[in-house]
């Protein structure tokens, strides 16, 4: 994807996987989440985030906000000749929203360059996917709107990358939207401080052992080590690099202070 391609992230990790990969610096989001004026939204939002240079025009806490917004991004990229593509990601829970259907309809109807990516971790808070979706694959929705739909292994980052790359090319060629469903997992509780429960039962240690067998980071690490793409030393260097970045991000966030209340008037209306 290019810098100016649009992305609307899924809610888990508040979009960190998508935004870090798209080049957005996470330290500003840490500062924002700490209420500091140095935060990406000036410290007035607790959890919103924005970086227009990287095609990221913000996210919202209302699940399903991304569908209509992505239609808007698609309309813009269809008109302004920059051939931007929109990657719009959402979880299996969010796919329940009515706005999905209205947006899939408009996108397909107007052949908008949107790649809908459903990250199906099979859990909507405590509700297993079989209790909130009638069929096995959410990707089947695609056929109703005349767009290609595909299921991929969401724990295999390469498989996802390849599928999305194909869909992006399709969209950029003006052939309209596609839907990719990634079967993935949620290793921890829905929200820090809540029990990690499925329906009525809390997940047990054994459940975690089973889950961790398909840890995407470990799977990919072993694969790259086996292929010789990655060496132990390279791995440690990367980890060390990241540790430094984490400390710098924390220092940046902690150094900031809350904004001056006068910003509320600056931000409410544009001149």
């Amino acid at each position, binding site marked *: 994807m290019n810098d100016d391609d649009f992305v609307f992230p899924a809610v888990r990790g508040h979009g960190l*996987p998508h935004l870090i990969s798209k080049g957005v610096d996470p330290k500003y989001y840490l500062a924002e989440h700490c209420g500091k004026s140095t935060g990406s939204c000036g410290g007035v939002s607790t959890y919103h985030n924005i970086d227009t240079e990287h095609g990221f025009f913000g996210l919202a806490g209302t699940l399903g906000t991304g569908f209509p917004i992505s239609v808007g991004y698609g309309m813009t990229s269809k008109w302004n000749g920059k051939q931007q593509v929109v990657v719009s990601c959402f979880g299996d829970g969010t796919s329940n929203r009515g706005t999905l259907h209205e947006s899939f309809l408009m996108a397909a109807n107007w052949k908008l360059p949107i790649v809908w990516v459903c990250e199906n971790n099979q859990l909507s808070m405590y509700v297993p996917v079989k209790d909130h979706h009638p069929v096995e694959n959410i990707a089947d929705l695609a056929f109703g709107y005349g767009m290609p739909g595909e299921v991929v292994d969401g724990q295999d980052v390469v498989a996802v990358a390849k599928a999305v790359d194909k869909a992006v090319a399709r969209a950029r060629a003006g052939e309209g939207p596609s839907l990719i469903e990634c079967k993935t997992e949620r290793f921890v509780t829905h929200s820090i401080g809540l029990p990690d429960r499925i329906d009525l039962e809390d997940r047990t240690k054994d459940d975690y052992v089973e889950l961790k067998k398909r840890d995407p980071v470990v799977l990919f690490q072993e694969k790259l080590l086996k292929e010789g793409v990655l060496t132990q030393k390279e791995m440690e260097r990367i980890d060390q690099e*990241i540790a430094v970045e984490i400390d710098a991000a*924390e220092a940046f966030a902690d150094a900031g202070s809350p904004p001056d209340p006068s910003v509320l008037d600056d931000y409410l209306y544009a001149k």
Partner: protein
Amino acid sequence: MRLKKEQKLTLYRNLVRTRAFDQLFSRRLGLGKLLGFWHPAEGGEAPGVGACSF
């Protein structure tokens, strides 16, 4: 689409950075050093990283 070595390392770095930052936010919320809620991505990073790395 054949991934070149450099692209694979990019995917790997993004995966590990995501995991590290996601755990940082989780840890800080537990310590009361983060406002609001935190919905961890742990275990589900690959779709986002895969979709937005290239």
